[in-house]
């Protein structure tokens, strides 16, 4: 049993399922992330990293969305399960 700890979405491994705690970003980018479904409370599954490790594909609210490090490193999450990590 892994203790719940807070990290950013960018730190997560493929296959991990996490819950969004907060967005450390303001303005247009915040609005954009919220519109894409990255809202506090939402569950996100990390799908896969592109060969260079950026961007990364995520499954959120029944849709696959890719985020760049610039965005994913500002989303604070908590581990809730998944098939890895």
């Amino acid at each position, binding site marked *: 049993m892994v203790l719940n700890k807070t990290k950013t979405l960018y730190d997560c491994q493929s296959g991990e399922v996490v819950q969004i705690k907060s967005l450390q970003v303001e303005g*247009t980018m915040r*609005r*954009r992330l919220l*519109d*894409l*479904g990255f809202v506090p409370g939402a569950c996100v599954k990390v799908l896969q990293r592109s060969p260079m490790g950026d961007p990364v594909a995520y499954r959120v*609210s*029944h*849709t696959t969305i890719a985020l760049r490090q610039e965005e994913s490193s500002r989303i604070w999450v908590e581990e809730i399960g998944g098939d890895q990590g």
Partner: protein
Amino acid sequence: MTSYRVALAGNPNTGKSTLFNTLTGLKQHTGNWPGKTVIRAEGTYVHNNQEYTLVDLPGTYSLYANSADEEVARDYIVFEKPDVTVVVMDATAMERNLNLALQVMEMTDRVILCINLMDEAEKKGMTIHDRKLADRLGVPVVKISARNKQGIDQLLDAIERMAEGKITTRPYRVTYSEDLEQKIREIEPDVRKIVGDQYPARWIALRLLDGDYSLLKTLQDQLLNQRGKGVETGELSVSCHT
């Protein structure tokens, strides 16, 4: 006989183009939106001897004009004022799709929520309480499956009744923080003085409070253009609160 104008809005991949093709068949043409590299698809269909012009708006998750797609869709709904805006939604991802639906409902009263991919939802054992949704949201809700051509007649009837002014809606409006609502109350009357009843004053007030200069610019162009055509409007001297 003039044609009613109907816009299809919605998230990407909700079946807008499938619905558009089902309704218009070969009676369609595509081009670009003026000054944009965004594809514009327009077509016509006839229902009960009345012609309708259907516009397939770009699919977006939002309408805050963060991209050319969003700007095109937003400007069409607010400034071109279609007789009916149909928000096409994915029945299997309602939470996500309601974001855009609520945004459109802030922009116009003439909205129909069209919940597509019902066949997929049923396969997944999901039930959509359309009556409850319509009650809570104050706008008509129609369930369809564009690919299987199910529910299309009900949708066309709903569009007809709305276009003819036979449906009065009461779109659910998001209530913001007291702080923000206070600011809206302060500037909405001024906005209304300028734009009259032709554009959604509360929505414009919200955009101005958000510092949306691109909207302000478009609004100014629209009003100047109309004044050139002899339409009376108030003085436009609002600036953005940032």
